[in-house]
């Protein structure tokens, strides 16, 4: 297969499939199209892996024109949305994009030059990693959505199915994301960026409730701020370099950053684009759009949180890392670390499952952004590993949240009490997913560990990391506790789930273990080259199946002449995991006569499987236990003011420094 075809499949096939499912309004056919697209995308991403680094520019200039036209079409649509919803923020930030853009292209006469920027696409290891994450995990989520949306509409008792529209945006999202991570031309990058914003808006607002539309609009205007910053960055690059389009490609910006040929003028556009990325990655104070996004059907959340949208944000920040000025890097690291900390603490007080997941995503994205800001080989490795593992684990967890929601028709953690008895299979997968977020052998913890070993250069970020890690354990443990809390029923059944649910669930489940165990080879063969696209790789972090970090990896340890900075025995830790959790589950089984009622001061009314007790006047009373949510200390009401103040202050300081240096 030629590169041209591979790119066409990666970007245009989802669009075509989207149009097909929109036109053919038939459940089975729709499922078939989605599955075929998923399979083709996955195979195609493997072709990308085998193809390796390359560049590509389409021969005909027609594509440039099409993209320009679509750009304006989208922006006009945003204006229309702003006017029809009377949402002035949407309108304002659409105008701040469209007016400068139009003036630049037509007023300042840049349009012909802009259409000739090349290369349009640069394929390197980092973008291949992203393409794989998007194509594989994104596709699995789309497959999951087939049945999910069917059940969703059954439950809502819709008269006219809105699924074709839903799948149009969902499948197209993948194409836009693929385009985004492959594009090198900034105009094209900007275009794909806007398409993801648009898809995101349409999907969040899908249910058309007042809340859904409001939250969709919020996602739209917040990301439009990012779009505005990107337009500003592009125009700045154009005008400061003597009206030339030379620096309107990512590769040239990075090149200029590496050899310092642009000096301080590069700092402002890089900071602006980084800001764009951080908005998309829902960094504080812009976390609200992602929190609002959870009103959408769960596959949307799964897609937004794991493989698309927010990952585009962190991708851009990592991509730009070589062009970071050290001061900018430190500021980005502190902003990211603050998000990691604040989101982890806020997650403790959340009572809705999906909201906990959302805060956890924001926290992890903060961690990734901070790693990009630290910008050493070790931290970038951590960032890319975190992207991969976070996509798998979070994708799985959202799919689990969806499955749970369709079994108990609730998203509240309190309602999930005793799920281990009602739906053992789902609970088992969910618990594994949660453990994979913070338990030592799994990849997420490996990433966090690497990040902590690298973070000392920014001590403030290091301290925030530490506090956040502790909070992370607490909020996961609380939720896990809810799922596990049961009165044992004698004779429980394993629930049956549709294939469209189980195939993605088990695939991601297997992925957690496969990638977790094979993290060292994965790093060596795959991630290391991606890291090489950002910083120069000098050290081998993997040895056999284990991760060993040599002393030369950080400046401090290199100075002190340390041989070994840290070690992470992957393989032995998985054995520990097996001995600690898997073996007891398999080997030890309780006999029914060994089960006893809990201690209720001798007042329990009945045997093991009742949770009633004799209360006042010998009335049978049901035992009810609630979770503990630290509402006083960690709630949004108590903390949000401070969080917003500090987060905004950090960005103001960041831009203050950047503007100060570049002027």
């Amino acid at each position, binding site marked *: 297969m030629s590169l041209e075809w591979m790119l066409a499949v990666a970007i245009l096939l989802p669009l075509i499939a989207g149009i097909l499912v929109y036109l053919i309004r038939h459940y089975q056919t729709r499922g078939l199209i989605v599955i075929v697209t998923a399979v083709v995308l996955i195979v195609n991403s493997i072709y990308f892996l085998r193809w390796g680094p390359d560049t590509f520019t389409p021969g005909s200039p027609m594509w440039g024109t099409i993209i320009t036209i679509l750009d304006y079409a989208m922006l006009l649509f945003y204006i229309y949305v702003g006017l029809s919803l009377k949402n002035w923020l949407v309108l304002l930030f659409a105008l701040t994009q469209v007016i400068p853009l139009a003036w630049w292209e037509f007023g300042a006469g840049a349009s012909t030059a802009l259409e000739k920027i090349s290369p349009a696409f640069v394929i390197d290891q980092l973008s291949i990693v992203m393409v794989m994450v998007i194509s594989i995990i994104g596709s699995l989520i789309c497959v999951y959505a087939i049945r999910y949306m069917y059940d969703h509409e059954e439950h809502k008792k819709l008269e006219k199915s809105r699924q074709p529209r839903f799948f149009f945006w969902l499948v197209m999202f993948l194409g836009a994301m693929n385009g985004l991570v492959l594009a090198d031309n900034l105009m094209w990058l900007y275009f794909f960026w806007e398409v993801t914003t648009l898809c995101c808006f349409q999907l969040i607002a899908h249910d058309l409730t007042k809340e859904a539309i409001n939250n969709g609009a919020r996602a739209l205007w917040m990301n439009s701020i990012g779009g505005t910053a990107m337009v500003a960055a592009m125009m700045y690059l154009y005008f400061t370099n003597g009206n030339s389009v030379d620096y309107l490609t990512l590769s040239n910006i990075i090149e200029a950053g590496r050899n310092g040929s642009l000096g301080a003028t590069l700092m402002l556009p890089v900071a602006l684009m980084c800001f764009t990325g951080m908005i998309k990655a829902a960094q504080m104070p812009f976390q609200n759009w992602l929190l609002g996004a959870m009103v959408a059907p769960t596959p949307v959340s799964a897609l937004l949180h794991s493989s698309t949208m927010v990952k585009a944000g962190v991708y851009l920040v990592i991509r730009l890392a070589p062009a970071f000025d050290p001061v900018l890097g430190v500021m980005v690291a502190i902003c990211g670390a603050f998000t990691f900390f604040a989101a982890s603490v806020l997650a403790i007080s959340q009572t809705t499952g999906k909201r906990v997941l959302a805060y956890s995503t924001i926290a992890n994205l903060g961690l990734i952004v901070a790693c990009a800001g630290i910008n050493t080989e070790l931290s970038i490795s951590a960032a890319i590993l975190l992207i991969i593992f976070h996509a798998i684990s979070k994708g799985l967890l959202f799919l689990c949240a969806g499955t749970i929601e369709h079994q108990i028709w609730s998203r509240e953690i309190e309602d999930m009490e005793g799920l281990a008895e009602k739906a053992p299979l789902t609970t088992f997968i969910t618990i594994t997913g949660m453990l994979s977020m913070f338990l030592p052998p799994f990849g997420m913890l490996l990433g966090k560990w690497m990040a902590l070993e690298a973070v000392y250069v920014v*001590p403030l970020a290091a301290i925030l990391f530490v506090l956040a*890690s502790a*909070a992370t*354990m607490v909020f996961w443990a609380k939720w896990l506790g809810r799922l596990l*809390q049961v009165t044992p029923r004698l004779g429980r059944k394993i629930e049956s789930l549709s294939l469209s649910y189980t195939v993605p669930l088990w695939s991601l489940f297997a992925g957690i273990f496969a990638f977790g165990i094979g993290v060292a080879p994965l790093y060596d063969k795959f991630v290391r080259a991606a890291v090489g696209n950002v910083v120069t790789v000098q050290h081998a972090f993997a040895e056999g199946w284990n991760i060993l970090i040599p002393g030369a990896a950080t400046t401090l340890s290199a100075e*002190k002449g340390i041989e070994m900075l840290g070690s992470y025995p992957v393989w032995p830790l998985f054995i520990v995991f097996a001995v*600690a959790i898997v073996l007891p589950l398999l080997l030890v089984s309780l006999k029914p006569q060994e*089960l006893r009622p*809990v201690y*209720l001061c001798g007042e329990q009314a009945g045997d093991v499987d009742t949770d009633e007790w004799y209360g006042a006047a010998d009335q049978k009373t049901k035992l009810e236990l609630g979770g503990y949510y630290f509402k006083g200390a960690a709630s949004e009401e108590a903390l949000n003011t401070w969080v917003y103040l500090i987060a905004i202050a950090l960005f103001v300081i960041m831009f203050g420094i950047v503007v100060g240096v570049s002027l």
Partner: protein
Amino acid sequence: MNPVWIVIIAIVVAPFIGGLLAGIDRKVTARLQGRYGPPLLQPFYDFFKLLGKSKIATSRTQYVWIISYLVFMVTCLVFLVLQLDLLLLVFLLGFAGVSFALAGFSTKSPYSHFGANRELLQILSYEPILLLAALGVYAQVGSFNISEIFKQQTPLLTSLWPIFIALLVVLTIKMRKSPFDIATSHHGHQELVKGIMTEISGPYYALVTLTEWYELVLVLGIISLFWANPLWVGILIAFAAFILELFVDNINARMTGGWMVRFCWAIAIVFCVLNILYLYFINMKGVL
């Protein structure tokens, strides 16, 4: 010595040390209260008695988390004796704590939940201190590997004494001593019953006791790293810290969970942070 032998010896010997320390604990406490006290080997009698009790449980998953608590704690100890990564050890220790909390959560018992929630508060209090201690060690030594600590000529205590003080707080929490015996306690307290331990009985209780012995040895071991060359000084320091805890226990009343978190974050963590920042600037001066 072959690492396999080191591991085996550590796993076998640690419970004996832990049990003896627990015996000393009970004896000293009794003497402080003007009593004669149980025999020194009493913890071992308790342990074996518990093993011989009939097995009863209140949920199907609790034992998994108890076993995982034990296994992860032993893993931590193995990390310590093989002188592996300190940071990873702290993460493992954190998960061991979470695992124990999950054991408390996985049954529908009010007292057990009390204790489990408080156990989480404890994790929130001590986990950052331990992580910061690991970072502090890195700031001083330049490596997270424990083996590098032993190559240092100057003891860590000279530059990391604020972190050492914070670690004593962790020791109090880990030993479940007043004022931090909030998740469960060694004495029968009416309002708590036995906290997180309420539904853990018989052989499972024995496993938890065993884990606590490992934990005690482990935390004392981490403390003794602060004077790693020669190690016997470190061990003496750790023992002194242990005895100090017994006095602290007997002259304090139990405090609330909220107070514990505030105390740890406002005082102990600030100690660690100042220590790390100070070392950072010292290191920076070396660079400039």
